[in-house]
């Protein structure tokens, strides 16, 4: 029987060990929270206050102007429109990329683990090797290739690039998940007359929901946070938020506006953060359901 909730030895009284345990947890929590705290606090300060140099102090008065500037007024080169356009570009890039790569990854994992066609192991090995190559070296030939199929500098192009570079990880996770699905399930469905796609959509995909959640979250953060691929492949009309963040952070007006930079940084990170805060439990459940296994 697997334990469904914490069930170590029953806690008895407050022992030294217990105190140490909580001390460890609180110190760890402090370590993990400090950077976020600093960012939020700094973004709410005025520049005058920031110059005092006490980065951990609470702001004297709450000043949201940095947030407004970051969202709609901060300058990049000669244009000063903040990062809001980038926000929608990021959405337009990330959502289809995640959906597509999760789908492809699920199909791959399913085919590789439960059908094992010829050369399946070779393909899997190739993908894993591909996953270990730094993608900087793909840039040059990829640019050429994308231009040849006239997908360079387009939304479709950047989405395709994300799907391609996501393939190794997504396939690995889904394959490892489907490997643990009993083969008999597939056999039973075949006796019932279902084919490759029918088994996938009606039986395997529903089983893999926890995995879909995990992979979606991993891919979402990965793609949302990408800078390099967006810069190179998206084209100027589709530049994601991270590229604009880079522009804002590296643009100064006589003095570095730390509050605006921090606000812009938080704004850029906020979507994945909210997703983790809201659906972290699903992520944990997905992992527990066997998303990552040896």
């Amino acid at each position, binding site marked *: 029987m697997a334990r469904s909730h914490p069930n170590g030895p029953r806690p008895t009284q407050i022992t030294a060990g217990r105190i140490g345990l909580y001390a460890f947890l609180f110190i760890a929590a402090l370590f993990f929270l400090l950077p976020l705290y600093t960012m939020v606090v700094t973004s709410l300060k005025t520049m005058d206050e920031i110059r005092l140099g006490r980065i951990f102090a609470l702001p004297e008065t709450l000043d949201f102007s940095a947030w407004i500037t970051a969202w709609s007024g901060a300058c990049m080169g000669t*244009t000063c429109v903040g990062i809001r356009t980038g926000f929608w570009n990021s959405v337009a890039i990330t959502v289809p990329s995640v959906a597509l790569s999760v789908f492809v990854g699920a199909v791959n994992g399913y085919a590789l683990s439960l059908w094992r066609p010829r050369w399946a192991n070779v393909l899997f090995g190739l993908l894993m090797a591909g996953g270990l190559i730094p993608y900087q070296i793909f*840039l*040059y030939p990829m640019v050429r290739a994308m231009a040849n199929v006239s997908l360079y500098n387009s939304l479709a192009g950047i989405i395709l690039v994300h799907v391609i570079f996501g393939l190794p990880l997504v396939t690995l996770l889904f394959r490892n998940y489907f490997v643990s699905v009993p083969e008999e399930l597939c056999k039973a469905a075949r006796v019932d007359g279902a084919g490759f796609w029918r088994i996938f959509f009606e039986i395997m995909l529903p089983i893999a929901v926890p995995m879909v959640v995990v992979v979606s979250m991993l891919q979402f953060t990965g793609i949302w946070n990408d800078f390099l691929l967006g*810069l190179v492949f998206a084209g*100027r009309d589709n530049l994601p938020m991270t590229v604009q963040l*880079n522009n804002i952070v*590296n*643009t100064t007006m*006589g003095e*570095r506006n730390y509050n605006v930079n921090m606000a812009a940084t938080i704004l850029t990170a906020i979507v994945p953060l909210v997703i983790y805060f809201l659906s972290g439990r699903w992520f944990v459940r997905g992992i527990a359901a066997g998303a990552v296994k040896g």
Partner: protein
Amino acid sequence: MKGMMKLLLTGVVFAGMLAPALAEDKPTIEIMSSWTSGGEAAALDIIKTEFEKRGGVWKDSSIAGFGAADAAFQNRIVAGDPPGAKQGVIGLAAADFVGQGLFNPVDDVAAAGKWADALPKSIYDLISYDGKVYLAPTGAHGESWVFYSKEAFAKAGITEEPKTWDEFFAGLDKLKAAGIVPVAWGGQPWQQTKVFNMILLSQVGIDGFLKIYVDKDKSEASIEGVKKTLDILGKLRGYVDDGAAGRNWNDATAMLITAKAGVQFMGDWAKGEFTVAGKEAGKDYGCMIVPESPGMVYIADSLWFPKTGNAGTDKAQKLLAEVVMDPAIQVEFSLKKGSVPMRADVDKSKLDVCAQKGLELMTAGNIVPDQAILLTPQQVGLLDDFVDEYWSGGSNDMASAAENFFAIFE
């Protein structure tokens, strides 16, 4: 190589075919630059405003950081979909692109605008390849400058600009004693290399400098000069603050603006930051050529015009070249950017004291080109590595370091 070029050109033509026909035939241009800092952006805006006034449509593709912008630009070239214009320095990097036949000449504009007469010959030669003009120079930057905060100098009791390195270090000691960071150091390789070069010029003189970089001369005198340069550079390590490593140049300038630091070694674009912050040259901050220097290292910015295969863009490129070389624009741009106008025939009265000093040196010919003009990008990188390694390695072994320096050219 030929096959590669063919492919590239096919890509260019292909991209041209795909470019949607413009509803209006207003000359439209996408300009890619890494001028995102305050002064830089303001200067770029001067060109933009005039360009739009003359009927052009301006699409801004600014990417902060030279590295990121260069990567994006090269990828666009590779994809056969380059932007209509790219901001970049005059030098061997540009020459590479021209050599590959990837840029449009702006010869007719140059002829009509009599650029040959307006520009110093050395500059005109640098923007011409095989007798054709390819680049539109925006302005020259002096790179031998020491900027100092008058407020900080006053606090430390420094009343006169130091004339020698000994005086200079004495001044730094005073600043240190006054609790001020003596040198606002931008600890990025390219900035450090600029400091190395300005000191080198002060030690070996104009001829010595050109001998080393152009002739790759490894004579006793050259080696001695490099050693002396490294000695001074090494001494400076003692006058920077803890946060210097990796610091951006504009952050370093901000330390002067707020009088947290005394001096900064930088190109004159730093003035742009002072201007944006409302500081005035000669009043709030001072500018001097590094001690003992007989002249000034310079670098020249320009606009590059890649071949896009689109007739509308070709037209826009010509208009843009015209705008950039307009005498009034050259001055306005330089004021914002902190540079020195390229044209000799501009109204000098508007320029600040620093720019006038720079222009004097330029007209007198007491200038040497920056390494970007003289060295290949590979060598520029190796030079950056060399200076950075010496600076942050903390070694004082000048002899073996000098050996390494000359290895760059092998």
